[in-house]
């Protein structure tokens, strides 16, 4: 079947349209002329309807939908022009194309009147069969096309309706199965509708008439409701608002409320809302908070303990150290060689103990220090190099640095970090070469990534983590002096600055200690200063 647009349109419907015969109305008072017209146009796809008068034509127009009307102009009683005028007045046929058949010559026919009455074409009698068929077929095509368009739009509308109703079903299904309460209510809190979860959540009988229930009953504190409504009123919506509500059995629970104020087409306002029971989540959060507070408190207590203990330990130790060193200076000569050695052990033991206590104190103090000074790392390094000038000179070390940034931090802690790393780099030097230490820095997004690189003895990979723990030493204090706290201080100090510290090393060739310090705050500060 020929259907020029059938391949492109969405529808099997176009075929249905084509199968339905198209109707054509033939109007003439003379039967012979009707028969003649009929014989010219007859075909399988056409249904020819015949009318012998204008009156009959009008009746048929009401009952059928025609693709085109062939209308004899000269008829008794009601001529073609009058008939056309009446056809046009009928709603169902106001646009049906009309072809006048007239014996009048072009000049004799009041063409303008015919056109104004809705004629779309003229055919002159005697009728030329080819011309008639050609003209009629144009209108039949037009009719078919418009029918098809109509059908398609109808089909699309139905499709949309089907989709909408299936969405509605799915939505309702979802609302029924959802564990989140979904409801709508008037601005005064009178319930309009709600899903089963809503009723379940608050223990409300789902069979009640919604308008008899006011949401105000759910608030143990009227004040909470007033606050929420005030915010809803000023902002038009609230999201994930945590508030205590009441189950009808009297128990309280925490819910998360999301509400939006909706104004419908009639200007009426109502509230659409979601409500979710978050009691478990709240309780878990509270437990977590309590645990964290407890942890913070116990950490603080531990730091305080370490501080006080190490401080109190210092007192008697100062006596041991001072008197043993005084004894060594004043009376060593009166002791024999062994006595002098014992005294030496006493002095150095006391001194090591002092270093330990000093470092524990420093470690314990880290948590207490504030973190908000503007620190020029170049100055920090210079100060460190001054502190270390003796061991640098004794070891023949070369310490170099990049131009370093200024950032927000705790100057004493950062000094300890650099001092510990640089002094370690010198302390753990390779016996075959002079120690070199370089402090470099590069920008990594919001962080400065620092690196302290040395050419020392290096560290085996299995110790990368261990060295940052308190009291962890890889070497005996006979080989390398130290308390085993220095790198733990570095790690705690860097972590207090929000960074991490790691080490990479090639044993025998050297180590690189890397740590990050946040740079964003400095930029922030610079902007603030320049503004």
């Amino acid at each position, binding site marked *: 079947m020929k259907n020029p647009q059938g391949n492109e349109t969405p529808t099997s419907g176009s075929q249905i349209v084509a199968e339905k015969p198209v109707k054509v109305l033939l109007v003439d008072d003379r039967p012979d002329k009707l028969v003649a017209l009929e014989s010219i146009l007859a075909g399988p796809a056409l249904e020819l309807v015949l009318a012998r008068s204008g009156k009959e034509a009008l009746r048929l127009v009401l009952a059928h939908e025609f693709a085109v009307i062939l209308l004899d102009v000269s008829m008794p009683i009601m001529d073609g022009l009058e008939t056309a005028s009446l056809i046009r007045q009928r709603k169902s046929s106001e646009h049906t194309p009309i072809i006048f058949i007239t014996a009048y010559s072009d000049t004799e026919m009041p063409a303008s009147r015919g056109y104004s009455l809705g004629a779309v074409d003229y055919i002159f009698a005697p009728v030329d069969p080819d011309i008639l068929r050609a003209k009629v077929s144009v209108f039949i095509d037009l009719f078919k096309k418009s029918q098809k368009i109509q059908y398609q739009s109808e089909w699309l509308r139905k499709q949309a309706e089907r989709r909408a109703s299936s969405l509605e079903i799915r939505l309702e299904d979802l609302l029924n199965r959802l564990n989140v309460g979904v409801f709508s209510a008037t601005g005064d809190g009178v319930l309009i509708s709600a899903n089963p979860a809503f009723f379940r959540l608050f223990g409300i009988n789902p069979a009640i008439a919604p308008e008899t229930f006011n949401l105000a009953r759910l608030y143990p504190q009227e004040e909470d409701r007033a606050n929420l409504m005030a915010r809803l009123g000023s902002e038009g919506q609230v999201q994930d608002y945590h508030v205590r509500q009441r189950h009808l059995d009297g128990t309280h629970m925490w819910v998360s409320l999301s509400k939006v104020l909706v104004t419908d087409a009639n200007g009426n306002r109502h509230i659409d809302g979601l409500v979710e029971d978050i009691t478990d989540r709240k309780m878990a959060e509270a437990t977590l908070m309590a645990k964290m507070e407890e942890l913070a408190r116990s950490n603080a207590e531990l730091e305080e303990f370490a501080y006080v203990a190490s401080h109190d330990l*210092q007192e008697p130790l*100062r*006596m041991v150290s*001072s008197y043993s*060193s*005084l004894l*060594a200076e004043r009376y060593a000569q009166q002791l024999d060689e062994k006595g002098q050695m014992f005294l030496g052990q006493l002095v150095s033991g006391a001194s090591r103990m*002092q270093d330990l206590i000093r470092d524990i104190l420093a470690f314990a103090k880290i948590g207490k220090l504030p973190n908000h000074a503007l620190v020029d790392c170049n100055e920090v390094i210079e100060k460190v190099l001054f502190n270390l000038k003796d061991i640098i000179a004794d070891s023949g070390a070369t310490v170099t640095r990049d131009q370093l940034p200024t950032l927000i931090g705790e100057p004493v802690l950062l000094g300890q970090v650099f001092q510990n790393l640089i002094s370690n780099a010198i302390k753990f030097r390779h016996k075959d070469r002079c120690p070199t230490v370089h402090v470099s820095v590069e920008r990594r997004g919001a962080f400065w990534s620092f690196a302290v690189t040395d050419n020392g003895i290096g560290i085996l990979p299995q110790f990368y983590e261990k060295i940052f723990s308190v009291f962890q030493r890889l070497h005996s204090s006979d080989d390398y002096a130290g308390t085993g706290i220095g790198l733990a201080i570095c790690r705690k100090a860097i972590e207090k600055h929000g960074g991490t510290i790691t080490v990479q090393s090639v044993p025998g060739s050297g180590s690189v200690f890397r740590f990050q310090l946040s740079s964003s705050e400095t930029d922030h500060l610079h902007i603030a200063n320049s503004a």
Partner: protein
Amino acid sequence: MSSPKAVSILLIDDNDGDAMLFREAIEVEGESRSITLHVASSVDGGISLLTGAGTSGVRLQPTIILLDLHMPGKDGKDFLRYRSENPELARFRVVMLSSSTRQVDVDDCLRLGAGHYRAKPKDWTGYQALTVFLRQFWDEAEKTAPTPAGVTIKNGDGPGSDYDD
């Protein structure tokens, strides 16, 4: 070398060990100067010596007061408060000598009128360094009151415990 002049020190410290070490250190210094060291083991004892209210009737005019911070009963800060409220004591300069290195202690003491804050020496070398630091005060005092060299140690507040070196 200028002739030795009179210098007197009041050490207020409850720790005998520290007092003795300080005495040893000062003795070395005393080889070239005349230094009198008075020791009080409590804040009240120190105040008595300065106001003449003690049993000995002594009323000291120390060149410098060395003050420990942590003591049983009244502590160093209490002494500083008392000093600032009493004009007769306010003229004596105070050097804090404490084992505390807490910034809050340092700040408090300086705010309360101490002229210096020094950590207690942690060994003998530290005591020697302390006497070197204190020389500035001796030098100043010597401009006014010359006396012969030697050190006099007085344990000021214990009954019958005064002794001379």
